[in-house]
């Protein structure tokens, strides 16, 4: 452990000093202090260990061992020709980040209505009006004990600030695209930071995607916060298709105003190791959330989802459907907490986690966890791990479909139940194809 710490601190210490030098006095002084505190915290706690309950099944030692170089410390991030990752619907409403740095020439926000801000977080910090909400958000996250969060706060140098004014509905999906690729032998590390503020009665769709043109080793350590005002409606689609050698550690944190609605669908297909922490807090009456996801892993991939849905006030509704498809020697962890706090009467909370094992060597640890401190509530949860249903296979075979295509079609259907929640055609098409490719089949 101590030698790991030494490696971590030398690698990240250099990066941290370089960042402070680069930003100089351009950043507000409170941010500089916060970064210093966070880095000191990270040096103290390091990366989480499997002795911690929340990290019991996910060993991040491989991340700790690697020498990462944050992109800004590594000069100009390379790479062009990322056209393949463009979603047509968001061609003029997207920010593209390469190794964590905004690439203006690849980005366009022309399709966004006046008053809507989709800007680099650095720019938002430099200009007055958004500083307060950003500061609040950063300060809150800085209270976290997590080493990953501290590292992000210390090292983030780019990311997005999205602001939807009250009453405004944005038709075009706002796409935040994170592309990573390591070059020159050093593993790239990026620390995306995103804050989405959807004011009262606004509506928007956020697409957050992670992709790589290659199969290199790199680290993404992202924090995304979404704040919904009263009556706001945000759809949030996260598509994680990192390189299968990469590490992806991310937090999504949503807070819902009264009668707000948050629909999140997360697809995890990439990365050697991925960990997604998704927390949704409903601290105002009448809020509703859908927190759905699909993880599909193969070979030696490891994926971990920790979700927390917190019902703090009455009359809130949460729906959660997480599905997993595991092949090869892959591992998945699903830990889904649903809290219904004291006084959160008339809560309706439904949670389901279903896993499909395509190989004998794949393994899932699933733990749905419902904790109810109110008495007038409607809650249900369940988890299942298994194979395809024999009756479904027979039904397809009885129509002349050979056993293997029958299994593939059923597996595709299993994934589709989550993928079809993403209401953007080009993303759905991409994911359908990705699922079929994983199954080595066509339709």
């Amino acid at each position: 452990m101590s030698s790991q710490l030494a490696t971590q601190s030398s690698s990240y210490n250099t990066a941290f000093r370089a960042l402070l030098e680069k930003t100089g006095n351009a950043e507000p002084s409170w941010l500089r202090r916060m970064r210093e505190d966070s880095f000191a915290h990270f040096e103290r706690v390091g990366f989480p260990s499997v002795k911690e309950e929340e990290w019991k099944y996910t060993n991040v030692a491989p991340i700790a061992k690697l020498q990462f170089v944050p992109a800004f410390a590594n000069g100009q991030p390379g790479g062009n020709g990322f056209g393949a990752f463009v979603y047509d619907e968001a061609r003029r409403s997207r920010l593209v980040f390469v190794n964590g740095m905004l690439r203006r020439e690849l980005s366009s926000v022309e399709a966004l209505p006046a008053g809507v801000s989709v800007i680099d977080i650095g720019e938002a910090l430099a200009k007055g009006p958004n500083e307060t909400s950003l500061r609040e958000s950063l300060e809150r996250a800085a209270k976290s004990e997590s080493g990953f969060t501290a590292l992000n706060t210390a090292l983030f140098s780019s990311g997005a600030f999205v602001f939807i004014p009250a009453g405004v509905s944005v038709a075009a999906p706002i796409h935040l695209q994170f592309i990573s690729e390591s070059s020159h032998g050093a593993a790239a590390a990026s620390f995306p930071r995103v804050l989405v503020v959807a004011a009262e009665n606004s509506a928007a769709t956020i697409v957050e995607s992670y992709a790589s043109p290659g199969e290199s080793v790199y680290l993404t350590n992202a924090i995304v916060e979404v704040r919904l005002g009263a009556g706001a409606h945000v759809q949030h689609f996260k598509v994680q298709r990192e390189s299968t050698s990469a590490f992806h550690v991310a937090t999504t944190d949503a807070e819902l105003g009264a009668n707000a609605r948050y629909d999140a669908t997360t697809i995890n297909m990439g990365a050697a190791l991925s960990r997604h922490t998704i927390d949704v807090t409903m601290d105002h009456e009448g809020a509703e959330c859908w927190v759905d996801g699909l993880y599909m892993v193969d070979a030696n991939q490891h994926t971990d989802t920790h979700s927390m849905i917190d019902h703090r006030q009455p009359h809130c509704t949460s729906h959660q459907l997480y599905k997993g498809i595991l092949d090869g020697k892959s591992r998945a962890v699903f830990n889904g907490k649903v809290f219904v706090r004291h006084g959160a009467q008339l809560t309706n909370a439904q949670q389901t986690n279903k896993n499909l094992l395509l190989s004998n060597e794949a393994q899932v640890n699933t733990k749905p966890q419902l904790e109810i401190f109110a008495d007038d509530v409607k809650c249900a949860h369940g988890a299942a791990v298994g194979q395809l249903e024999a009756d479904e296979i027979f039904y397809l075979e009885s129509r002349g479909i050979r056993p293997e295509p029958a299994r593939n079609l059923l597996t595709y259907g299993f994934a589709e139940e989550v993928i079809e929640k993403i209401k953007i055609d080009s993303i759905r098409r991409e994911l359908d194809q990705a699922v079929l490719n994983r199954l080595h089949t066509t339709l």
Partner: protein
Amino acid sequence: MLEIRNLYASVDGNEILKGINLKVNKGEVHAIMGPNGSGKSTLAKVLAGHPSYEVTRGEVLFEGKNLLELSPDVRAREGVFMAFQYPIEVPGVSNAQFLRLAYNEKQKHLGQEELDPLEFKDLLKEKAKIVEMEASFMTRSVNEGFSGGEKKRNEILQMAVLDPKLSVLDETDSGLDIDALRIVAEGVNKLHDPNKAVILVTHYQRLLNYITPDFVHVLSAGRIVKEGGKELALELEEKGYDWLKNGSVAAGAK
């Protein structure tokens, strides 16, 4: 076309079929009737090759070939079709995707041309008319959220697309209102021709008002206990099944 000889089958160690003999020729329509639990669905599933059912004795020849040694998918591609009493829901897979895959598997098997999604859409549109199904059913997940009657119509749509030689329809009439029953029955009649055969498994005589059987067989406790022409169905309607339950086993196969 089909010859069943002294067929015994069991499920989970329970013997359900106890010596079935049945011969079906091209162009014929046979009805298999009988009380609940007599083994009608078991017989249908054994013909389709359901893996839970074990054949312990006897043989089944389909066009001279040993049907029992073929896997379920091969049986289907060779032209055996069973409409399920309880059709299975397949979430996430659209009716069109499912049917095109099944259709193309058969075409491949027969060395005939496969269809791309657009070409298949045209074919499906024509076939859907036979059971008066709307286009919206083609993009919906297979049977998911379908009413009982819609599921049964969907079974006949599959039959129309796959164009089998032998169709075994297991209680396709149950759960249908009178309009749906007429649509399904007319569909089956339209699809029938002198080169094909149909086995209608039914509990009630109602369906036989629309589809006239050439032969009626009554199954009780895993045996065929009575056989006759279409008038036997009317007799059963009148008298019920009780008088047959302890009756003598029909003499031999036809």
